[in-house]
């Protein structure tokens, strides 16, 4: 099993993908955090909200800071998910799956090795995203004269949960890749879901009385919940789960996808 995990780690580390995606993640997070912190804290100067300051938009300073530190998860989770998915779909795309299965004919082991090997990469992505997000976010808050709460250990707990959330997203990506081993389709679904479908659903559910509680169980919302606040829930689209419940829900998505992938991959002919 160690040998299979070593092979999977080397597969990820020997192409450019991991750092291209990782660098994109840092840029995307820095940009989104800067834009959102700026628009929330300087809303009055921009004339976007009628009254004077942040409190008037319904936030207490602590919620605002937590929301800012959750942005790397809300806007960055597609990157570890894509890395995880490509860890499987890339093998089919480039036909390396042949040699991979020759070296490890037990397909369940192969999937398990990929689920484990993605974890250090997910952690690295989580660290990159959260460090970038906290630097830019805290900088923005401080500039606007808001409190950063970085002297509060429980805030660091939330930030650490953001790292965990992005790691779980990488695992979910592997599950998705196994369930849908077509690279183009899986990327289109991931980008479409995370950037379009889920944000719309979360807003829409907020307006539909019987579905209001359901939006918290959507995968993106579950990931956001791990940090304890969300840009989307801040925009009045329902409450979030408790951090550990969010972790459990997101991991369940990963396990369901992996189980579907396991059924598919163990039966599928490679020809």
């Amino acid at each position: 099993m160690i040998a299979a995990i070593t092979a999977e780690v080397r597969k990820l580390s020997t192409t450019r993908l991991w750092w291209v995606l990782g660098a994109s993640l840092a840029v995307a997070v820095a940009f989104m955090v800067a834009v959102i912190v700026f628009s929330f804290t300087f809303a009055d100067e921009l004339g976007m909200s009628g009254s004077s300051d942040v409190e008037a938009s319904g936030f207490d300073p602590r919620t605002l800071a937590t929301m800012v530190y959750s942005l790397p998860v809300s806007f960055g989770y597609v990157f570890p998910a894509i890395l995880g998915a490509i860890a499987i779909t890339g093998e089919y795309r480039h036909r390396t799956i042949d040699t991979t299965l020759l070296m490890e004919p037990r397909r369940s082991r192969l999937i398990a090795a990929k689920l484990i090997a993605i974890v250090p990469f997910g952690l690295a992505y989580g660290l990159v995203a959260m460090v970038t997000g906290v630097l830019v976010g805290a900088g923005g808050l401080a500039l606007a004269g808001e409190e950063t709460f970085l002297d509060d250990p429980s805030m660091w707990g939330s930030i650490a949960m953001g790292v965990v959330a992005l790691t779980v997203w990488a695992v979910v990506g592997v599950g998705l890749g196994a369930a849908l081993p077509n690279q183009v389709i899986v990327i289109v679904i991931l980008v479409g879901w995370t950037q379009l479908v889920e944000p719309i659903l979360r807003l829409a559910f907020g307006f539909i009385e019987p579905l209001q509680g359901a939006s918290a169980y959507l995968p993106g919302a579950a990931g956001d919940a791990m940090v304890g606040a969300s840009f989307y829930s801040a925009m009045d689209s329902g409450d979030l789960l408790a951090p550990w419940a969010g972790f459990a829900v997101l991991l369940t998505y990963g396990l369901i996808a992996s189980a579907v992938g396991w059924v598919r991959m163990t039966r599928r002919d490679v020809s």
Partner: protein
Amino acid sequence: MDAPAIEIRSLTKTFGSVHAVNDLSFTAGPGRVTGFLGPNGAGKSTTLRALVGLVTATSGEALIGGRPYGALEHPAQVVGAHFEGAFHPGRSARDHLRVYASQAKVDTGRCDEVLAMVGLTEAAGRRVRGFSMGMRQRLGLATALLGDPQVLVLDESANGLDPAGVQWLRSFLKAFAARGGTVLLSSHLLSEVELTVDDVVIVAGGRLRRACAITDLREEASAQVRIASPDGDKLTAFLRDRFPAAQALSATAATVPGVTAAQVGAAAFADGLELHELAESADSLETVFLRLTSQEAAA
């Protein structure tokens, strides 16, 4: 010590309504290079994939040393296999091998060793994206050799090699078999592997057409000998007396069907005919191959 043999027993594989392999049986023994031949779509790749567990047989078995691939303890140390195009273009040749080194139970030094064996030392650090077809085939062979296996299963490994490459592969595989190894090499071109293989297994339409030694196939080829002599009149008389079935190509050259070069040469010597050319025609084996794999043969 002899390597395990490959046994295909009544193997059948259908993809929906396509009968890719149909009740196919043959063996490839140790110490020999077995050519697995047939036109495109004959079911060669499917058979080899079933042999190494990439494809699940509909019925029948494909065994290595009496066991299915998946039941081998350390498969990469017993069987080295390669199928076409299994590389990530962005990975270097050395990294491609290093990825699999842990599973083949070898250290990274072995990666450089197999690269040297296939003549890719210079290109070791280059990305596969820039590799020619011949270089890819060499890297594929290096991948198969990683675990120092006793059995090689190679799908179309001579495809795309230049003549020097084909010659290199030939001597490599012959030496591997001479050390007791088992080699099963598929090809859609008999001419590509004709001088490499000891045995042939010919398939078409998923069915076995012939399994025999290449020497048997040569004998079966309707031998045709081309001769030329500077003395046209004497040649004509010689052919009329000795080989009436001969066909004249020109005043001084002719082809003689159904004989060997030795027979014609001996007769010419006995008759005192000066020969400037005496050759068994090279396309006769190809003709047998075409006849065996043609549609009519299926009926």
